[in-house]
């Protein structure tokens, strides 16, 4: 089981991304900087699954802090399929039937992308409905724990277990349960096909989305092309916020209290600098530099603050569309296959790909990858996503 970085229980049924803590088991978030770090507590989502009888099989591999596309720059190396194409570790474990489901952190779309490429389902729930307690933090304002599983039904089952108010998370919404649908009510639904995102994808991905839309129509769903002019601005805004928040959150890894410490230092400054230089990869460093710059005195107003304003505008634009549509359909990534590439290109590549995934992270709305594509829905309307996916899976869309 090469997709596991840590195996916990041979009879376990759930894979937990290495960005989510399981008490007592090394949690490295794909990074050298957290080498040997064993958390003192489990994430709330892990506690809830274990409490409901789902044993954790192991920690699935992720890229450093989950920042890359598909784990290609994980400290332990990428996860590749037989052809040498990049795969998300958790999505592959689910696709191969090794686990019933997986918990993943959707920070910049990685688990959605992975699910779309491996032909499984991943749902990023509405921000605040699932506790982030125990997640190795990067961009707290938009990251969410979600569920990967083979079918919409299995996603729903696990989501019901992990969702609900958690007093340990100050952004947790008050409700204890949410509506995750019943797999019915699909005929008559209205779906918007997002032009800007579809146009930006490769031809084979475009064809995949068009075919999916066609099959939706076959189920009695109305599919219409819609425009989301702020899609690009949303990507920029989310990447700015993500860099800024991540820069701040990873600054605690300094080699002093836990994790990797450089053997080579003469004073406290060198201890910090050398531990971080050796412990973090080039992509994380780029994120830190961009983030630090966006928060600096000279840039705060023109970068960070503006990103917050764009977040508001995008939210209004998306909300406007959800007055007329139950869901928005688009690609989850630009292509149908990815190969390993040089880390020097990582920041640019991740930025470009996040065009397809940024809106739900930026605005907090739910998003689901299924059938190789993805859909967004309005806040707390996971039911629409799950119902559509379930109907499509029943119609032989996979």
């Amino acid at each position: 089981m090469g997709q596991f970085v840590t195996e916990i229980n041979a009879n376990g049924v759930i894979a937990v991304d290495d960005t989510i803590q399981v008490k007592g088991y090394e949690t490295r978030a794909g990074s050298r900087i957290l080498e040997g770090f064993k958390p003192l507590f489990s994430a709330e989502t892990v506690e809830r699954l274990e409490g409901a009888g789902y044993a954790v099989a192991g920690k699935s591999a992720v890229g450093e802090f989950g920042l890359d596309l598909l784990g290609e720059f994980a400290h332990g190396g990428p996860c590749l399929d037989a052809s040498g194409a990049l795969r998300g570790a958790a999505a592959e474990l689910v696709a191969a039937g090794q686990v019933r489901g997986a918990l993943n952190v959707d920070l910049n779309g990685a688990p959605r992308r992975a699910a779309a490429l491996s032909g499984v389902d991943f749902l990023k729930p509405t921000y605040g409905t699932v506790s982030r307690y125990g997640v190795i933090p990067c961009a707290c304002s938009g990251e969410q724990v979600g569920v990967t599983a083979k079918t919409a039904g299995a996603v729903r089952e696990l989501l019901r277990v992990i969702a609900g108010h958690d007093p340990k998370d100050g952004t947790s919404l008050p409700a204890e349960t949410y509506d995750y649908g019943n797999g019915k009510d699909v005929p008559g639904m209205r779906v918007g096909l997002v032009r800007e995102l579809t146009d930006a994808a490769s031809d084979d991905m475009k064809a995949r989305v068009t075919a999916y839309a066609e099959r939706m129509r076959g189920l009695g769903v109305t599919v219409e092309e819609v425009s989301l002019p702020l899609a690009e601005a949303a990507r920029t805004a989310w990447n700015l916020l993500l860099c800024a928040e991540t820069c701040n959150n990873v600054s605690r890894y300094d080699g002093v209290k836990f994790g990797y410490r450089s053997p080579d230092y003469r004073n406290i400054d060198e201890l910090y600098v050398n531990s971080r230089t050796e412990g973090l990869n080039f992509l994380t460093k780029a994120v830190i530099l961009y983030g630090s710059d966006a928060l600096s005195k000279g840039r705060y107003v023109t970068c960070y603050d503006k990103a917050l304003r764009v977040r508001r505008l995008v939210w209004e634009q998306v909300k406007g569309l959800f007055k007329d549509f139950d869901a928005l359909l688009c690609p989850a990534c630009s292509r149908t296959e990815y190969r390993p590439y040089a880390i020097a290109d990582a920041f640019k590549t991740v930025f470009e790909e996040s065009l397809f995934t940024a809106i739900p992270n930026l605005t907090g709305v739910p998003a689901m990858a299924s059938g190789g594509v993805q859909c967004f829905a309005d806040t707390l309307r996971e039911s629409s996503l799950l119902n559509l996916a379930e109907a499509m899976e029943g119609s032989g869309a996979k």
Partner: protein
Amino acid sequence: MRYEAVIGLETHVELATNSKIFCSCGGHSTKGEPNTRVCPACAGMPGMLPVTNRRVVELAMRAGILLHCDISRYTTFDKKSYYYPDLPCAYQITQWFHPVCRNGSVEVTTKDGTRTIGIKQIHMEEDAGKLVHDDWTETTLVDFNRTSVPLIEIVSKPDFRTADEVMAYLEKLKTMFRFANISECEEGAMRCDVNISIRPEGTEELGVRTEIKNMSSLSSIRRAIQYETARHLDAVERGTETLVQETRRWDDVKGRTFSMRNKETAADYRYFPDPNLMPILIGEDWIRRVRDTMPASIEEKTAEYQSKGLSEKEIASLTSERALCDLFDAVTAAGRDPKEAASWILTECGGILRKHGQVMGELRVAPEKLSRIMEKVSGNEINRAAGRKVLEAVLYEDADPDAYCKAHNLSAQGDADAVRQVVLKVLDATPNAVKDYLGGKKKAFQALFGGCMKELKGNGDPQVIRTLLEEELSKRS
């Protein structure tokens, strides 16, 4: 030309809460063995999320109400980033964009009169840990007990002109905050940054400003202000040096300030709103609730005690400590006479504490026990001297008044027997005085009485001594 100093203060006050500002551990966490008042959250372990302690917001509002501030209807927490080993997350959660209170004022009185000092804002924040330097091993250790202890920072306008005004202000804040249970204001729980510049009297433009960081003792603050003002004057009037806007450090041993030429002063703190802490919306209802549940102010207590017939001095002593007022209120509520209660608390308890080298602030006594002692004395079950003895046992042995009296045979009767022994001893020892008295010299009685009092070391009940003396003398006539 005459110059005046322009001084502004940033005062950090540790709040009296049962837990830290964003986690449930801690409390009065500067105490205790190093790193025993710490949890994964305040130690900065990844995965923990901050959750605001509601009490902190309420105490900050309470301070704002006392300092006549506007309470913000919308207030947020922000992150301030810098690297320092005592800061486990490499950021401090504070309030940068929307502080909880703004635009207040406070009156300070010095020998030169009363002036109003403006308050720019009050904001909430978490404290950092402590570094302990071990010179012997040349190592530095970190103690996280103080990490995330709640603070409020009160930022004054640059309205002070003298060190006396600063002292009066800090003393006033201390008394006010202790009295309102906002802070215990114990040693080190109040820390100040002082901004100073000078300008010709009567002008508006501010001179070059320097800031002296992180002082906690009042005498250091006074000396630092005096030193720094003189340094500015020398520079401006005599050209001894060129002043630059900078942060300085007060060295209490050398008695002067030093420039802090380090990176810290040039840091860009990269403030941004903490996405883990939702903005706090403060409605009228909440403000009213905080106002209504505020402990009575010193002024209100003073008026109340005046109406109960206490003297100015008694009132001043009682209102110096919230705990003394609470004790007094509880004892009088139990039916004891107010004048008597004040006397027992201030004179009797105070005397016993002094004898043990303690001060009034250290008084810890259950009001029921003090009340019971007073009841026994006023009901003539025991005399006042015996009551004092019981009180001492209550204070230092946690004795029960009734049980103690019984165990030590303290009663009016047992007492009278002891006094009678003394009277007999005095009469036997001074036959001449007895003869004089019986021969009609009534003045001799005073000498006999004085002898008994001396023998009883001043602890006798005069009425009892008088009665027994007369009784025994009549037997000898």
